[in-house]
């Protein structure tokens, strides 16, 4: 019965190979285990989480903080005016997109944080990847909390923050939906991530400029932490974080003039990154056709600096001189100017997120508030920012202890300097809110100082995620 034997063999061969045959890896894509199992693709995933953060931050989300307080102006018909004029509704696409983009970046960071520990490649690479991912996660949660956390900027840290998703996506199980953590819990997690990242990261001397300033270093984490602490009104922490962030004075150096930080250029790639930038999106190094979506400043028709705001600068201030308020698009309205920060015709300017001058001002403010005194170090920090903003020979008299009648006077001077120094860099609205000032006349109701939670989140979690009061 040779034949029987042969046939039997065929059956055996076919049936034993079943299990292997059913595991087919796709050809055009990678699956999760492949991505995190290899240092190069894991690095690429980390790059993606940075990029997604950039995508979430840029465009009108970046512009709106300055539009809100009147630093800049925009056409009233622009769809995104609702981001600051109090008309935002929970079904708005604007906030849904913002929410989804940040959480999408967080998810990739979570994949790295949770799965890289099991990878088998070099431990030092793994440690760095995880630490950077923690920075990315912290940055995204910070922005989410700032935008959606009810009371997060006004000192009510027991109010609802945002859902704190620390697990990477593996499957959707509605029973594992999570509610919003309190703002304090979110802040705590952010600082925990930043501390852990700062602990293992160094200010890598071998990194290229775009990697050094476009990705997290030790100082980057501490610098962000100083702002986080300031926003959560933990001023003593802000003092200590800023002190640590200022220790590396060889790689992070205050420019002698703010104009040097933001040269107006038409170059489309590899625009130098000034040593004052602690963290900036290195747009001109990214090979992506998408720009930073801030070309509106160059064109001057969609968004432009408010002349009333520019008038508040002292005469001779470089930040309102032709060095930093440039012509922009020559065919645009002649009465308007373009800030050199965003004067690239193709939107290839680096997007500044953290600058050394901010850390100076963070520290100055935190010192004054934590000691509740007219602090000399604070005055000297303020002076370094203010003095460099005037050309040699036209510098104003430096402040001294006698310049300020009260603690409040000094705080106000610091905040004022902050508005001038960090104008158009997506700070002002939050500096107003955290100091209890309505950003504009539409936003007198403090409930509207945060965005509504996207309606879809509430629907899809059957109300587990709650709406902010007032929406």
């Amino acid at each position: 019965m040779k034949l029987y034997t042969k046939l039997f063999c065929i059956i055996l061969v076919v049936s034993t190979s079943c299990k292997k045959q059913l595991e087919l890896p796709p050809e055009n894509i990678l699956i999760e285990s492949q991505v995190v199992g290899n240092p190069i693709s894991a690095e690429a995933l980390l790059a993606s989480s940075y990029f997604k953060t950039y995508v979430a931050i840029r465009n009108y989300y970046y512009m709106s903080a300055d539009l809100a307080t009147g630093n800049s102006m925009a056409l009233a018909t622009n769809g995104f005016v609702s981001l600051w004029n109090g008309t935002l509704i929970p079904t708005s696409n604007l906030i849904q997109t913002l929410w989804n983009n940040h959480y999408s970046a967080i998810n990739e960071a979570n994949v790295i944080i949770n799965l890289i520990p099991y990878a088998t490649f070099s431990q030092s690479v793994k440690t760095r990847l995880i630490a950077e991912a923690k920075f990315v996660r912290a940055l995204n949660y910070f922005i989410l909390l700032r935008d959606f956390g009810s009371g997060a900027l006004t000192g009510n840290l027991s109010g609802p923050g945002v859902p704190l998703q620390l697990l990477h996506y593996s499957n959707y199980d509605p029973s594992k939906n999570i509610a919003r953590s309190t703002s304090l819990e979110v802040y705590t997690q952010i600082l925990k991530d930043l501390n852990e990242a700062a602990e293992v990261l160094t200010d890598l001397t071998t990194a290229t400029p775009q990697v050094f300033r476009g990705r997290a270093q030790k100082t980057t984490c501490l610098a962000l932490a100083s702002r986080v602490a300031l926003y959560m009104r933990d001023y003593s922490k802000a003092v200590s974080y800023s002190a640590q962030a200022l220790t590396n004075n060889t790689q992070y150096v205050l420019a002698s003039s703010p104009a040097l930080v933001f040269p107006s250029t038409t170059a489309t790639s590899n625009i130098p990154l000034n040593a004052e930038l602690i963290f900036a999106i290195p747009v001109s190094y990214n090979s992506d056709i998408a720009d930073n979506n801030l070309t509106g400043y160059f064109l001057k028709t969609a968004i432009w600096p408010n002349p009333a705001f520019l008038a508040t600068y002292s005469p001779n201030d470089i930040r309102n001189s032709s060095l930093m308020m440039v012509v922009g698009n020559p065919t645009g309205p002649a009465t308007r100017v373009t800030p050199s920060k965003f004067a690239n015709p193709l939107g290839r300017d680096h997007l500044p997120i953290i600058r050394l001058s901010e850390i100076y001002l963070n520290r100055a403010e935190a010192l004054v508030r934590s000691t509740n005194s007219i602090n000399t170090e604070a005055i000297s920090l303020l002076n370094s920012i203010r003095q460099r903003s005037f050309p040699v020979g036209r510098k104003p008299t430096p402040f001294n202890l006698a310049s300020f009648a009260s603690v409040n006077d000094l705080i106000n001077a610091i905040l004022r300097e902050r508005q001038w120094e960090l104008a158009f860099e997506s700070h002002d609205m939050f500096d107003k809110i955290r100091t209890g000032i309505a950003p504009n006349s539409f936003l007198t109701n403090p409930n509207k100082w945060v965005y509504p939670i996207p309606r879809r989140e509430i629907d899809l979690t059957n109300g587990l995620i709650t709406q902010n009061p007032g929406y």
Partner: protein
Amino acid sequence: MSKLKKWYILFWMILTSFTLNAQVKTISGVIKEEQDGSPIVGATIRIKGTNTVTTSNEKGAFSLQTSSNNFILVISSVGFEDKEVAIIQAQVPKFIQLRPTTNSIGDIVVIGYGKVDRRKLTGSVGTLKPDLVGSNPISMDKLLQGRIAGVFVQPSSGAPGAASSITIRGVTTLSDAGNSPLIVIDGVPMYGQDRINNSTNFSASGSAASFTQPITANNYRPNNQFERNPLANINPDDIESMEVLKDAYATSIYGSRGAAGVILITTKKGMQGKARVNVNFSTVAQNAFRLPELMTGDEYAQFYSDYFDTLNTRRPTAGWPPANRAFKKGYNTNWLDLINRTGIGYNLSTSISGGTDKTRYFVSGGYDKEASYIANNDFERFQGRISVESNLSNNFKIGVSAAISATLNNSLNAQRAYYDAVIKAPNIPVFDALGSYAWRAVFSPANIINGTAPLRDLNPVGTINTGKNYVNDLRSISNVFAELKLTSWLTYRLDFGVDWYNTKAYSREINKQGTLRGSATESNINNFKTVINNLLNFNKRFGDHSISGVVGQSFERSKESATTITATNFMDDRVLSIISASNRSITNALTQEWTLVSFLARMDYGYKDKYLVGITNRIDGSSRFSTNNRYVNFPSVSAGWVLSKEKFLQNARWINELKLRGSWGLTGTDGGAGYYGSLGQYSFSTTGSTYAGSTIISATRPANSDLKWQQTTNIDFGLDAGLFQNRVRITAEYYKRTTKNLLVNGGLPGFVGFSSQQQNIGEMVNRGVELTITTRNIEKKDFSWTSSFNIARNENIITKLNFANKLDASLASERSGGRFWLEGASATAFNLMYWGGVDAATGNPRWIGSGDTVSLIPFEILYSGTSRDFNSQRRNMGDALPTFFGGFDNRFRYKNFEFSFFLTFAVGNKIFNGAKASMYAYSSVDAPNLSKDVLNYWRKPGDITDIPALINQSNTAFTPGGSRSQFQDFTLGRNSSRFLEDGSFLRLRNLTIAYNFGENLLRRARIQGGSIKVFAEANNLFLITKYTGIDPEISAFGSSVLQSGYDEITMPNPRTFRVGFKIGL
């Protein structure tokens, strides 16, 4: 039995009959059925050449008295082939087996992995044996149309080689993949209908609508795409039978692919006997059924001049409309007439078959040409098949069945040319002043001033005469098998089959304004599938008990590769090779694979052939399934009760057969979630994004390891009856199919990192009844009339849709304008803005809202900027699929004449007349040609018309706030009911008359047992419908049943006339 043996026996008999003494003895035996060994009651047993006759009793036993020792027994019984058995020395074999004849009610039905006697079938199987009076249609989908109850076949268009949608018992899933039946040809599951995989994109200078003003809201945009018909590779003349498996008993054995039904195709095989030669030849003429009525050049010029004047008085802006608003008159180009023709096609099909008792063969070859009614657009097919079976020994048989076919479809431009001919301005000539095709010539002031349009090359005559656009399929569906009879009741069979499907498509636009120096697209698709089946078939009878069935295992693997390359900038229009272009790119290169491992079993049990029970089960493990749910089980149970065998019906002589049956079981759908359904996917950015110099790999698709597979529960109750000597045969059925775990793209809360994912959130029910009546009305020597009627009703309801935010989520799934899914409605419902006609006082369209409120402003504008969603005003206006449909076939024979006609019908289906919407879309920039209806527009208060004023509140000339820079026209949207029409129809699909040259004539020509038939037939002779378009039986979205019901200037089915002959020798 070889001839030699017969002669030998005869010789023996003659010899012995003389030598032995005459002595009366009793011989006895049992007559059994060959298939399953059941006894045959009432068979006639006669000793050849004598009057000694008896009949078998209820156990099939007989006895006879004879005095001779050697003789021949002739056994005959209704429903079985006659059999002669030579008896030597009075040694009668214990059992004499009869083979059932195939054309009786007791015929054999092919089912999954086996065959069964229809009388014992406990499931629902529709059979079609193509034996038309005239010629078979060119592809089997058209052959099925209207023939089997519950099988809804809808051709997508009149373009040759275009796909059809085949829907069995309603829509099964809400994913595009999964609504077409599995098609199995001689045991090989073939690549079937699949809109995504079978579509070929071609290059063209934007047939997509370009810059129009006003812009039609919710417009249809034609895409440069052609969906091939994968069934066009098979020659219907090679098909012995097609079985449509409908219920759980029949389909559960196909497990994860059975939910949308299964079609089994059995090809012709050789039969023992002398070589038979068949030659069929016919010539066919194809014409347009009807052409749309459009404005002439002068009417067109007058209309647009008037329109511009109206614009000028009603909505003037600086410099617009221009001072010179007159469109040029004088040319009256009828573009449709210029591209229309009578296409002459051919069908030649030949076969030779025969065999000995050891080896049987069937060899066929054929050539077909279908010439569409658009000039220069043809479809050709060359194909051949060989089937050989050989008994190597008494219990071992091997065989091969191999087919190759090549199709060359040159008609990819037909649809595009037809569309362009409808919309192209008629007031311009075909050729410009320089004698070249006027691709962009515009004789309108608007364009000369705007300098913007048309932005595309538009000249249907140029389209069909220049460039190239073809798709070339090479395909082989073949299998080999070995069958070993282990015992008298147990057979082992090994099948190995392949479907090798190769496609090359090439399209080329010549050097013209839109495609300077030419552009080309070439795509190659290589699909290769193998299947191995190991089957143990058993068939055993113990007294009153019979058991038959199969146990087996199947392994299938498919690899599908596609590459697409495009190029522009050729040095010469005559150089075709892409490599010769100076600008080339690869737009697609991908190989995808899947495998399926299955274990299957079926057991049929019968007690006294009266009480029948069937059980089937299949376990499928698919690489497409998620790791956590990799193996899925699909069981079924069924039962039948043959009432006609009960004593209480024995006296009802008019009932020959009466059977009640029912089945329950599960089937599945393996499409829907793509190839690697459950895995989280990460992709490189296709735009090459980097961050700070690092490449980016981002998460593009969330993991879904808990995804469950769509599962359909099928319940079926049926009645089969044969009455009045089986002259009336009735099958009536009720079914209910419930699909659970429907895969729909569902929302995820954004905080998890993704915003949507395929989820198991739907449930759907199909309920229906089917009735088939086949009658032999008149059976006389010179005259006979048979007819066959089928009708089916199906109702589809989405019973559950777990969307968190229902309307929003429904809208997210919206496609083709008016189609989205709502709980409680059909999957193919139209949800539209209710158009209430034209207000006679103002000429504005009336929009009827959800509370029957009337608005003269479209809700899109009325609710703009408010929290109210205009979509909440839409209502369910009907279903694209019919409530009833079926066919009615009649055949007559009078002496040597044959005559047949075949009607098909559908009732209750709605169709969106997008063709009309396009022909009503006047625009100030493109200025397309229009239907003459538009001339009847509202001019002054009191006018009763259904065409609104040229400028009205719904084409936003008077938008409140009016800050829009462009007009939007809401009167033509695919989301309004204005163009939704009743698509019910009755069609005379076929009318054939044939003449058979009598046997006498053949005998005189010394041809024995042959036949010669000449025939003439007409297809699509008339159509009765209320539909104001041309043809309600088309679909702009190919084989996608979920998107059916849209006529978007889709080429209507042609009318054809055919003459030919059939010779059998």
